[in-house]
């Protein structure tokens, strides 16, 4: 019986923790946003440079550089950074960056 109680308690505790984690995750999800910048990245080495440095800017969750379109796509945590800071990070590496508005992307 004791064992059963213990087991139930443990399970409840685990479920609680999981639910809490889930809650936190959902809150996190809400903060995750995406942005695409048109940049002046125009060489293979530039791509390497951006790929080596940009991931370590605060709040960046994922990113991709597209050399053909000269764009940088970034997934970021809006509670930690914003579009201006992200653009500034690209400029700091030596390239111009201008946000592509989602509406225009659809138009394309």
């Amino acid at each position, binding site marked *: 019986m004791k064992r059963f109680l213990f087991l139930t308690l443990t399970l409840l505790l685990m479920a609680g923790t999981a639910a809490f984690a889930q809650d936190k995750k959902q809150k996190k999800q809400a903060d995750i946003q995406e942005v695409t910048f048109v940049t002046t990245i125009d060489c293979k080495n530039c791509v390497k*440079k951006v790929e080596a440095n940009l991931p370590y800017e605060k709040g960046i969750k994922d990113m991709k550089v597209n050399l053909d379109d000269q764009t940088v796509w970034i997934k970021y945590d809006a509670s930690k950074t914003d579009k201006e800071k992200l653009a500034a990070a690209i400029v700091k590496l030596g390239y111009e960056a201008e946000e592509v508005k989602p509406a225009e992307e659809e138009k394309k």
Partner: protein
Amino acid sequence: MKRILTFITLCLSLVPALAQNFHGYVYYQKPNGGTEPLPFAQVYHMEHEKLIETDANGEFTLKLNARATLIATYVGYTRDTVVVEPGTAEARFYLTGENDLDESKVVAQQSTMPKLKSIKTEVITAAGLCKMACCALAESFENSASVTVGFSDAVTGARQIKLLGLSGTYTQMLDENRPVMRGIASPFGMSFVPGQWLESIQIAKGPSSVINGLEAITGQINMEHRKPTDETPLFVQLYGSSDAMFEANIASAIQFNEKWSMINMAHVGGTAYKMDHNQDGFRDEPEDLQLNFTSRWLYYAPSGMQIRFGGRFLNDDRLGGQMSATKDNTYNLQNNIWGSKIRNRGVNGYFKIGVPLAEDNHANIALVTDFNHHEFNSFFGLKNYDARQNSAFANLIYQNEINEFHKVEFGATWQYDDIRQGYGHDYLTDFSRKEHAISGFGEYTYTWEEALTFVGGVNLEYNTLHGWLFAPRANVRWAPADWVTLRALGGRGYRTANIFTDNLGIFSTGKDFVIPDKLDLLEDAWTWGGNVTFYLPFGAEDTETYLSFDYFHNDFNKQVVVDPERNMLAIEFYNLDGKSYTNTWQVDFSVNPLERFNITATFRYTDAKVTLKDKGLVERPMTSRYKGVLNMQYATAMNKWTFDFTAQLNGPMRIPRYAAEVWDMETSPVYPMLYAQITRKFKGIDVYVGAENILGYRQHHAIIGAEDPFGLNFSDSGMHTMTSSSSIPQVFDASNVWGPLMGRKIYIGLRYTLWK
């Protein structure tokens, strides 16, 4: 350029906002630095989502009330973006032709197959190179089934590659399109190119182009080094492994100004102490210390002229053989000490210049020159082999891209080799030679959009040793649809055999050499083949899923045959009398089932035959019949973690007669090799740990007669004694290596990159 533009834009934005009319000018920036207006180019006003067109003079006007992002584009040109502040009066946009860039815009994760190349080329990119511990070029092919890497013997640690089932000596090695690792520099050449110096490696099977000479028979491997223009003022790599191998690399690229840039790279590496895992009394790998330095410079003139020059210094000392052998005691008959000492020293210098002959660079002329000095001093128990080589190379190439369909290239090449070599004390048995080769070549390329490319070329050479040599070569690539590409190629290749350094393993035997006086050193072969690649419509977005089939056939007219089987006490050299050919089939499959998760599977089958005296046509010894490679790589977002796993299945090799009798096996066993590596990236720093040969598979008996290396030895005294008690006399022979000599290896490495 872009930075200057930004600066100009910024400066202009400081002008008080009065004039609201903005003028834009769009130019075509020519490769030679000149510009011309680009009429009817499109300019996209991002904020207003409006498209504007330039007039016949490449100009446009627009009302400007707020900050505007303007992107100028033109089909076939790169785009240029300028952010204009209100009040700016004018701005200039510079577009370059997409084809002007000499580097293709391919950013790949690893081994890739560029779709548009007319010769199917396997590319191992920097990312692919990082997958493996790859201390040297020789270790960079673990994921490739096309290239097989093995040891030439169990003593020297020299690694040799095989392409299309033939020794790497039939593969032309190029360093940014200069022939390298020739003659006596070849046996350790693969070990003398630090993997960390390289940006990418391109493997092309078949004879390829006529422009780089005639020596490519089974293929070409081109190495691209880190570039002077890399924006990395400092790169440092450190590596250490459980089998006493260590290395350190440092590279520094500096751009002095728009015109001058330079990269210096230094390497120190080797094997720190001796080990004998299989307890045969012999070191598994020699103790080794390699020092290697290179400096590479680039001058880029505004006119479009480019000059590249540089040099390299190399010193490598290795000590192999029995555990009891020391640096000062590599030979002691009384105490039965058999040791081997090898020293390689090399100096290389090169100078390349390319001059555009037209404003748009459709015609240009290039000169490539190279000088190489190499010294090879070695001692193996009783034998010594010494060699010194001076080589000079000059290649003058004229190229004219007449229009989008036709391109011609022609030129002339001079290659000089002065090789002094011999074995026995003080070049007792002299095999020195001097050789001049002067050739003229022409190559024509026809391109029809992206669907068809045909390249045909001829090369006529006059060689002071062999007379006139003629080699035609051609290849064609046809992509009838998006999902399929067909390629075919064929051609002839020649080379002069270097009988000792091509077969370094012969020194790690107690056997004598039988070399006829009139040995013809010319090797002459035809190679042809084809490939079909299907691009399949599944897998993660933005990646290529392909299935590819290869077939290659190689046929020798003339070849120097090295026969260890006819006579158990000697290795015989003679000219091929009969057939010598290989057939190679290969299938490759690559897919990304998920984003950043790649699976590549490759399988190669080789049927290699050679005619040996008294035996007739037999399977070429020590050539693996097949190899299968399965590679899986998964990377987390932004490659912060990378997990690599490679499984190899190495097929059997036919073991030469006497070794087969002693070991009582006709063919070597099939064995698997597993590799794994985990890389973690931090800002500027990558740390990687990995394991090679995870299953710890080893060839336990690699040396025949290891207990008595001086027994039955003919070569020095001309006398021999029968000392072996077994029924088959065991002549010392360490040249039959079919598997790994070292067991499991764990390694750790660190790469640090400082970005400009």
